[in-house]
């Protein structure tokens, strides 16, 4: 029996674990943690076997589907892209679950925690192996739901409850766009098929991709611009990705999502939630690459997010918030990588997913290390920390490795380097090529400045936390082995994964879209009107070395400022630039207080108040008019029989006279 036949178990086992842990967890050891751990281990093993099988036989992709309703289906599609994602998600999720056993040791509602993380993992795995966009949307929403539950895990804290709401509502904006994209796509396919097709499932990826040229041929007028339906659909899909993956301007929920347990942050930031947006774009990349306008938008927005979030990360004092902005920034790089499809064609998927995987390793590790520090020390304000390295050597070393990987240390031109270096530099180089080709230099500038800031903020974090002397009184101890073992494993992956896979990875992912039998690069060039570069690597040497030089510069500057304290860049609290960045560009003020409260909330309530008053007036007017009439007419009812008799006689007489007159006239 081929291993692909077990693919349905990958999301099903965590789902079962969710049910079991949720209802029976209280009676089990460690709050039922072993059930999801076992289930996810099995999912991981199946995913890994499928991936290994695909590596040897690239044509044995898993594609199964059953009828759902109408022209829709439920199905599994595991091609190289999905296989890699499945393996990564189940692996990172597994490690985080193991780590959680130690981290959540003292929490009373452990069963709920493990049940919800199992649901989270299940929905993400389901999202990855969906073979049609509708099923993907269902799991997409499930991911949103579980993130809401977990961010608000400590729902007793008002800040956690409001952060959960914020995350849910902000991503909802993206979800609505995604849904709108699906609806437009559906109606287009409906028109192309001339009704429901008989022998094809409508929203299956295969069908979608096969009809790209037709969809691209349709166009609509929007604000006087001629926009192809393909551009519209891809932009809406990208809107969904913006919400889920925390791109500007829908990134506001991500830093607040820190209110959940640190392990949840690790799950959200590394494995299960934010990667969904990038995955959506990668999954439907044949559509994106045929819509050049969308790719430009993605490149600009991704690059801008990378820089924008990095500037905020550099002034934050909260350990977890620095990491949160770092995630937004890194997601920007992934989006930027996808936007590079305009110059490197379908290889952009490999480029971006490679960074996604590496990022998952080192960002999960960063969060787990931060969680370890918080668990031991009890604070996550970096100003109160310092010198933790002596107390927690394993945590310090693993976090240093993660930091090196995030900042991108390695030797350019070779395959020696941390995972983050190999993937991020590839994206920055692609951005350079993009600039050279299309003279859009801004994404490259964003990316390269972002790289410098990345190095600066992560080493600032490391120096402030682990070196020097403690700034407040605290006692720490190294975390238990259930926490350190996952950290060490992740550290090994952050360090070596890239080196072992760098060449293989893009070749492997290059086979992703083979199942649709189209030359997508040709399709892209014909629809997108751009030239693809067929050989890379002829960049000037300085471009290759610049990211590393900037990373080292970031390291040195932060070393001098925060460790040796010879440089003093400290500015007064009232420095306008500092205030602007520290207050996060006043996004909260602008978006929440300015827009959400002032415009939406108050505007809506004002409008509703007036509408309500109008309706009230109409209803009251009708009511009181009728009452008045009743008051007037009721005096007719005297209660005296004779009056009624008189009225009857008068009426009859009148009738008789009328009849007479009418008869005369006729």
């Amino acid at each position, binding site marked *: 029996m081929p291993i692909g036949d077990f693919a349905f178990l990958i999301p099903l086992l965590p789902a079962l674990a969710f049910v079991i842990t949720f209802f029976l967890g209280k009676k089990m050891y460690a709050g039922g943690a072993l059930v999801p751990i076992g289930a996810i281990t099995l999912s991981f093993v199946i995913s890994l076997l499928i991936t290994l099988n695909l590596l040897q036989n690239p044509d044995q992709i898993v594609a199964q589907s059953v009828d759902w309703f109408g022209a829709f289906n439920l199905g599994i599609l595991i091609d190289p892209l999905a296989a890699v994602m499945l393996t990564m998600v189940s692996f990172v999720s597994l490690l985080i679950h193991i780590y959680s056993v130690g981290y959540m040791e003292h929490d009373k509602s452990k069963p709920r925690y493990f049940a919800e993380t199992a649901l989270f993992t299940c929905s993400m795995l389901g999202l990855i192996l969906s073979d049609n966009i509708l099923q993907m949307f269902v799991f997409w929403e499930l991911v949103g739901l579980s993130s809401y539950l977990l961010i608000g895990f400590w729902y007793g804290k008002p800040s956690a409850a409001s952060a959960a709401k914020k995350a849910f509502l902000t991503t909802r904006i993206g979800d609505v766009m995604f849904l709108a994209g699906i609806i437009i796509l559906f109606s287009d396919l409906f028109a192309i098929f001339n009704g429901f097709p008989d022998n094809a499932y409508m929203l299956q990826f295969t069908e979608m991709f096969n009809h790209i040229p037709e969809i691209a041929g349709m166009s609509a007028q929007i604000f006087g611009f001629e926009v192809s339906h393909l551009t519209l659909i891809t932009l809406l899909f990208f809107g969904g990705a913006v919400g889920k993956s925390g791109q500007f301007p829908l990134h506001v929920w991500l830093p607040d999502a820190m209110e959940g347990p640190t392990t949840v942050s690790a799950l959200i930031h590394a494995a299960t939630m934010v990667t969904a947006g990038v995955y959506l774009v990668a999954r439907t990349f044949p559509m994106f690459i045929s819509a050049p306008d969308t790719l430009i938008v993605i490149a600009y927005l991704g690059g801008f997010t990378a820089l924008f979030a990095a500037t905020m990360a550099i002034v934050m004092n909260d350990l977890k918030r620095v990491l949160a902005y770092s995630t937004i920034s890194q997601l920007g790089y992934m989006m930027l990588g996808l936007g590079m499809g305009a110059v490197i064609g379908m290889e952009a998927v490999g480029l971006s997913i490679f960074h996604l995987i590496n990022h998952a390793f080192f960002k999960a590790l960063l969060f787990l290390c931060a969680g370890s520090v918080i668990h031991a020390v009890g604070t996550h304000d970096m100003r109160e920390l310092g010198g933790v390295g002596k107390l927690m050597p394993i945590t310090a070393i693993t976090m240093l490795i993660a930091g090196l990987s995030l900042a991108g240390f390695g030797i350019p031109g070779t395959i020696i380097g941390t995972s983050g270096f190999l993937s991020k530099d590839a994206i920055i180089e692609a951005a350079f090529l993009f600039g050279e080709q299309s003279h859009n230099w801004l994404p490259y500038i964003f990316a390269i400045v972002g790289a410098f800031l990345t190095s600066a903020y992560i080493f600032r974090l490391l120096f402030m936390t682990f070196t020097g002397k403690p700034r407040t009184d605290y006692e720490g101890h190294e975390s238990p082995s259930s926490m350190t073992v996952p950290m060490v494993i992740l550290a090994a992956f952050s360090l070596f994964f890239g080196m072992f896979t760098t060449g293989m990875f893009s070749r492997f992912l290059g086979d992703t879209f083979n199942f649709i039998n189209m030359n997508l690069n040709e399709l892209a060039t014909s629809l997108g009107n751009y030239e693809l570069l067929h050989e890379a690597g002829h960049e000037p040497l300085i471009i290759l070395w610049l990211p590393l030089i900037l990373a080292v510069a970031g390291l040195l500057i932060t070393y001098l400022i925060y460790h040796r304290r010879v440089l003093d860049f400290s500015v007064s609290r009232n420095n306008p630039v500092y205030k602007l960045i520290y207050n996060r560009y006043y996004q909260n003020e602008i978006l929440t207080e300015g827009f959400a409260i002032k415009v939406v909330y108050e505007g809506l309530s004002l409008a509703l108040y007036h509408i309500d008053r109008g309706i009230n007036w109409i209803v009251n007017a009708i009511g009181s008019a009728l009452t008045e009439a009743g008051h007037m007419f*009721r*005096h007719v*009812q*005297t*209660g*005296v029989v*004779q009056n009624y*008799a*008189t009225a009857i*006689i008068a009426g009859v007489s009148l009738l008789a006279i009328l009849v007479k007159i009418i008869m005369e006239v006729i």
Partner: protein
Amino acid sequence: MILPAIPLPFYLILSTVVFSIGLLGIMTKQNGVRLLMCVELMLNSANINLVAFSSYNNDITGQVFVLFTIALAAAEAAIGFGIFMAVYRMKYRIELNDFNILRW
């Protein structure tokens, strides 16, 4: 001796006069018993009409109908007086203006 036949219009005029007296009584009188008497007057004016037309048309049906009407009038009078007796026991008077409780 056969009296010369009284022409039909005379009967009709008599009937109208009786009916109008009854009507006027209903509309103006306050006493319940008088009211019932006026109702009887109106009924009987109808009877006159019926008999007159019956004789004029040589059709017995009209006279049969009158018998029904008389029986009906008796029944009606019985019920009417019954009601007035009950009312009188309640209020010791049968002035109709006092019985206006079914009003606004």
